[in-house]
């Protein structure tokens, strides 16, 4: 009804997004930008898109922010219970299967496109998961609106057996490509390196969009409204205090 009068309901908070992952010689590196959008408006300039799944598994999420957060949270919980029950470290394929089954059940209505990466007893793994529940297993992957920009970088520069620094540099380059060439992605670069020994979550590893436009003098706005008269009227006391009287009954 309000739409007739030109007032539209806010569109979903989406994570326009560029998310990437690649396998390097010691494990997996995941990367993501940090812009969250509500239609044409940037609603969060520094959100976290790399979600914790297990101590050795992380997941980047593109699509509707609420969906990616809820689904990764839920599967993370299920993995924790599974770990208690089996007494073993979680496997990436377990997280993969739990996620894809859930997404397929909802026939694509849970709008979450994920890049899942981790290292377990069987080695390093990297997968992409689409909202309808299909998955791919890849040595390097990109998702989100900036995926084409990032994939262009990967396709030209990826090779097997990258070292840790080479891998981080390549991931950063791919995310930056998304940040600068895709309107849905922007702000900073988050990187997460997962190896057999452990994980390193490099939050805001690169900040290529610092805020440089604040004036050091501060801003002063000219007063446009002229003050004609100042009059202060105290409000009347509405409460009459009667001393004494009977105490309230318990």
């Amino acid at each position, binding site marked *: 009804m309000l739409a007739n009068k030109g007032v539209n309901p806010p569109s979903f908070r989406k994570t326009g997004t560029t998310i990437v992952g690649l396998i390097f010689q010691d494990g997996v590196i995941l990367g993501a930008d940090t812009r969250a959008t509500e239609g044409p408006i940037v609603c969060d300039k520094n959100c976290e898109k790399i979600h914790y799944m297990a101590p050795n598994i992380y997941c980047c999420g593109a699509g509707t922010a609420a969906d990616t957060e809820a689904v990764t*949270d*839920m599967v993370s*919980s299920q993995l*924790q*219970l599974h770990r*208690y*029950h089996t007494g073993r470290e979680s496997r990436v394929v377990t997280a993969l299967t739990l996620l894809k089954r859930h997404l397929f059940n909802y026939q694509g209505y849970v709008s979450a496109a994920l890049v899942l990466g981790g290292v377990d007893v069987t080695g390093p793994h990297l997968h992409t998961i689409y909202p309808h529940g299909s998955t791919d297993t890849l040595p390097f992957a990109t998702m989100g609106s900036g995926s084409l920009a990032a994939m262009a970088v990967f396709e030209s520069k990826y090779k097997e057996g990258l070292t840790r620094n080479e891998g981080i540099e390549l991931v950063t380059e791919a995310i930056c490509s998304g940040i600068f060439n895709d309107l849905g992605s922007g702000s900073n670069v988050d990187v997460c390196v997962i190896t057999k020994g452990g994980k390193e979550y490099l939050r805001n590893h690169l900040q290529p969009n610092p805020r440089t436009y604040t004036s050091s003098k501060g801003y002063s706005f000219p007063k446009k409204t002229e003050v004609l008269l100042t009059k202060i009227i105290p409000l009347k006391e509405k409460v009459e205090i009667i001393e004494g009287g009977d105490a309230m009954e318990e």
Partner: protein
Amino acid sequence: MLSLLPKDFEFFITMGDSQYSFSLTTFSPSGKLVQIEHALTAVGSGQTSLGIKAANGVVIATEKKLPSILVDETSVQKIQCLTPNIGVVYSGMGPDFRVLVRKSRKQAEQYHRLYKEPIPVTQLVRETAAVMQEFTQSGGVRPFGVSLLIAGYDDNGPQLYQVDPSGSYFSWKASAMGKNVSNAKTFLEKRYTDDMELDDAVHTAILTLKEGFEGQISGKNIEIGIIGTDKKFRVLTPSEVDDYLAEVE
């Protein structure tokens, strides 16, 4: 074979005849719930377990007597972890314990999902106790044949709780359950001090277990779980237990 009257067909349930659809825990004329009393007897004939709350942590321990020397003792773990900072041990029926552990872990995880806070020890105890109480007031089920000792360390410091088959729970400074309970409790009453350190508590726990132990005590036939100021519950390895045993000698 019970003969079914025509009226019974209306209430036919897959569980059995309608004559058995009442709860087994119905009050006796003396005001007791007989099934719960029997459950406590089952607990009382289980292997001894005990817990001691120290000033800077909690220790729980149990006998691990296996039915035969052929049983692989590494496959049996009586002390379990419910959350990273809460552990539990039992006296009574092992399979009932496993079911409760599974339910408690799920509840702890659900609490964490909802409040993004690790579940406080008292909350988990309350929820576990509520599950155990449910099974004393539902149709077609029996009470759990275990008493639990839940040890945890959260913002309120170290805590030790006992939960009974009836669903009642108590906070203890030190407690024991199972076969040797009266001797163990007397021993603990004598030895317990409020300012005990965690290591002293482990030694006291070992001595208490030794009291009623038949045979040679070693790292292979007892289990000890500790949680200290690091708030991480862990079960000691058999070699660590042997080290503590050597210190006690």
